[in-house]
């Protein structure tokens, strides 16, 4: 199968997933116990207000036509009106998106910077003390609540050592870089255990390959062997692992943005939950779903473009 056919097929596979994502987000309204309009607007809402929301969301129409209405609006980029902030939900989400994207990219970079050296240290001598020490990292890291880790970092680096600001997004590129360091580090540390584990395993596989034995027998020094031969071949699996865990990475931002008061869509989601601002919660959930689907697609396409060995059958 050719490259273009692979891309076409991968895009076709998106259709059922995209439809499913909209169905789940649409049905969130109908999971609300009782009359959704009444429970969203609260007990003090006037009957006129409730009726207005009923009309706006088409709650008195049949389910299928409600879904069509939802899709029709979605097609026009309309996620509904925010009940608390006023204005359109999509506008709100767009203005909060840059901070979240910053956090995701910064955290992914830091996760690679943490995981690659540690995995190399572990794989360089299997079952040695250093290997066991690195392998202990995931055991502790996997059970660590990310928001709690955030507090520890705030206490250590922001309150005690005063190296970084306690919270906020900062201004300008360098401001972002400084302010977003601790939150990105938190997400990166939460992600690192998974990446270290699979990167170590893939490096060990590469180390067992024939071309490594050849290089060793030619007398290639250890560092050069690792940088030129092992790392190059182990990076592709690492990128794949990052791609698979992108949902985890993106989900982690919801929690961390709230700990560090970063004005991203994760903070918007939690604030809107407290204000019972349903259209915004619904919109953010949809955007998160779309984000994961798109990043997965990009990872697959990049993978196919980078690695000539990828066969395009399934």
């Amino acid at each position, binding site marked *: 199968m050719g490259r273009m056919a692979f891309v076409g097929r991968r895009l076709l596979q998106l259709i*059922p*997933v995209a439809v*499913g*994502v909209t*169905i*789940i987000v649409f049905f*969130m309204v109908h*999971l*609300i*116990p009782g009359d959704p309009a009444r429970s969203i607007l609260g007990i003090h809402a006037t009957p006129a207000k409730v009726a207005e929301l009923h009309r706006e969301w088409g709650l008195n129409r049949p389910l299928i036509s409600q879904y069509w209405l939802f899709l029709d609006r979605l097609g026009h980029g309309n996620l509904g009106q925010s009940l608390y902030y006023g204005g359109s939900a999509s506008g709100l989400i767009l203005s909060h998106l840059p901070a979240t994207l910053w956090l995701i990219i910064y955290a992914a970079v830091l996760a690679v910077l943490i995981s690659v050296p540690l995995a190399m240290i572990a794989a360089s001598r299997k079952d040695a003390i250093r290997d066991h020490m690195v392998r202990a990292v*995931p*055991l*502790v890291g*996997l*059970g*660590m*609540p*990310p*928001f*709690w*880790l955030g*507090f*520890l970092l*705030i*206490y250590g680096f922001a*309150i005690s050592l005063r190296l970084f600001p306690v919270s906020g997004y900062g201004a300008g590129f360098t401001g972002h870089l400084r302010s977003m360091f601790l939150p990105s580090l938190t997400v990166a540390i939460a992600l690192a255990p998974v990446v270290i584990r699979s990167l170590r395993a893939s490096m060990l596989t590469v180390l067992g390959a024939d071309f490594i034995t050849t290089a060793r027998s030619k007398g290639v020094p250890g560092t050069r062997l690792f940088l030129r031969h092992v790392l190059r071949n182990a990076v592709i699996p690492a990128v794949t692992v990052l791609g698979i865990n992108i*949902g*985890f990475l*993106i*989900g*982690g931002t*919801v*929690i961390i943005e*709230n700990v560090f008061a970063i004005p991203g869509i994760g903070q918007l*989601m*939690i604030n809107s*939950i*407290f204000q019972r601002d349903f259209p915004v*919660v619904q919109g*953010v*959930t949809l955007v*998160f*779903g779309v984000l*994961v*689907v798109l990043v997965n697609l990009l990872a697959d396409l990049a993978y196919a473009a980078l690695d000539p060995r990828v066969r395009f059958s399934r």
Partner: protein
Amino acid sequence: MSAIPLAPGSGPAAVTPERAQKRPARRWYRQPALMAGIVITGVIVILAVAAPLLTSYSPTAQNISQSLAGPGGHHLLGTDQLGRDTWTRLLFGLRLDLRIAFIAVLFPFCLGTILGSLAGYFGGWADTVIMRVVDIVVAFPFYVLVIALVFVLGPGERSIYIAITAVGWVSYARLVRGEILVAKRQDYVLAARASGLPAVRIMGRHLLPNVITQGIVYAMSDIVQDMLAIVTLGYFGLGVPPPTADLGSMINDGQNFLSTHWQLTTIPGLAVVAVGLGLSLIGDGLADLLRPGQS
């Protein structure tokens, strides 16, 4: 020397050397990771179960005159801003969160195993439908969907079970489906089919016992993830409503006193880390035990 040498493979003696090699790895008490995990988890579970016996305070009784007391004296770990004993709240918080985590893992385990078996065994449209649903659920970040569902259903224990089940079953379904796809081509399954056994019996009595170990190993790390989700929901005020002691809400209560009373946020978090460490060690040990040579 008149003994007749045994032909290879004729009798128990020939099997012995191979068995003898495998045996040390198969004895569960010789697995350091598993033992350490069982000890850590065991101590935590005993602390949680025996909580009412280990403290003379109530987890919810307020005593404003004693608020924000330091560790030591009458209060082992000090008190919070409402004068509640931190040690007591820690024990009762662990008790609640562990109970919810252990129950919460059962529903996705069962649902995912059943749907994964059906998809793997029957293939065809059942497989297509189930795996497409899996793709859709996987499209949402775990925390986003759990938080959104608990918000929609209203905070509380019941919503936590529903949300974790709705999101968590997909991992088990993928895992079990993959295992079934391999196992159903094995001779013993073909034999069972050829002898005309009904599909339900083949799946339940022949396939499931052979593929379930992977699911059990995964369940150990899944409990850790559920525990984190429960604590996170508690932190955001979406867990079990106050004043019930919950580790997440304890961390939330303590965050305003981070610079003066760091123990209020640190200790409940350490308890969660300890639970995660114990269960991860059990999971790793079980994996080594059940799938030797694959670690």
